[in-house]
């Protein structure tokens, strides 16, 4: 189950990578980055559920050591927050680009000044 989850995560990441590198439309590039983020989150949640944390392996007890199994889930939570921030800023950049250049093709807009 664990390795199958990691393989699903790797497949999602590579589909996203292919999309980022091969698409022209800037929103398609952003969407592909989101697919990559999702792949990474699947891997983090799988690690959290199936891998033994070092503090547990070393035999520590207590609530802090026990909830170390949720470290991967909290990391995934932060990753979701950062992804939401990235999408909001990225789409604001898209709107700004459309207003100033009237263009959505990433290969044609390669200079950042006006």
């Amino acid at each position, binding site marked *: 189950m664990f390795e*199958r989850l990691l*393989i699903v995560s790797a497949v999602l990441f590579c589909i996203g990578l292919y999309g980022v590198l091969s698409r022209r439309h800037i929103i398609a590039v952003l969407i592909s980055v989101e697919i990559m983020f*999702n792949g990474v989150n699947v891997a983090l*949640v799988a690690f959290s559920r199936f*891998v033994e944390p070092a503090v547990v392996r070393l035999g520590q007890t207590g609530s802090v050591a026990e909830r170390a199994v949720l470290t991967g889930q909290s990391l995934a939570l932060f990753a979701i927050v950062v992804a939401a921030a990235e999408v*909001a800023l990225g789409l604001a950049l898209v709107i700004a680009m459309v207003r100033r250049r009237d263009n959505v093709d990433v290969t044609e807009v390669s200079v950042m000044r006006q």
Partner: protein
Amino acid sequence: MTSGIEQAAFWLLAALTIGAALLVVHATSMFRAALLLVVSFLGVAGIFALVNAEFLAVVQVLIYGGGISVLVIFAVMATRDLGHGNMHTQYQPVALFAGSSLLGLLIYAIVQAEWTLLPETLPSPLADVFVDTPAHLGQMLLSEFVLAFEIAGVLLLAVVVGALSLVRERTDV
């Protein structure tokens, strides 16, 4: 985790997620790509629910399935009459090679690595943590990860200000 229904649900969700993601990167219409993206997000939420991450599954549906997809669809509709659809760049063969070779490398590494896994049936204190995930996650965010939690708040504030200043109409500079 090894019962037949859970296995079947996992394969179904994995096929749904990966199939939708493949269609997203191949769709010629941006609007269709945005709608398929929502399907892929919901599939990932189902996978989260299968591996004892119910809270993350809800967060995934709310933030990805709700917020991010609405933003993306809005942006697609705002830029609809521009561009020539969702075409490939000239680097498509390179991208295909990079993606598939990285996938092969990752699968090789995943299969070869020696993981120190938890026992198949969890010992009682760990099993209790997975039963009551949101409470333990909340305690973690406000103790072990409190600095990251506060920085996330500052990040969101900076993003709101930054996005507003990017899309503001310049009346006078």
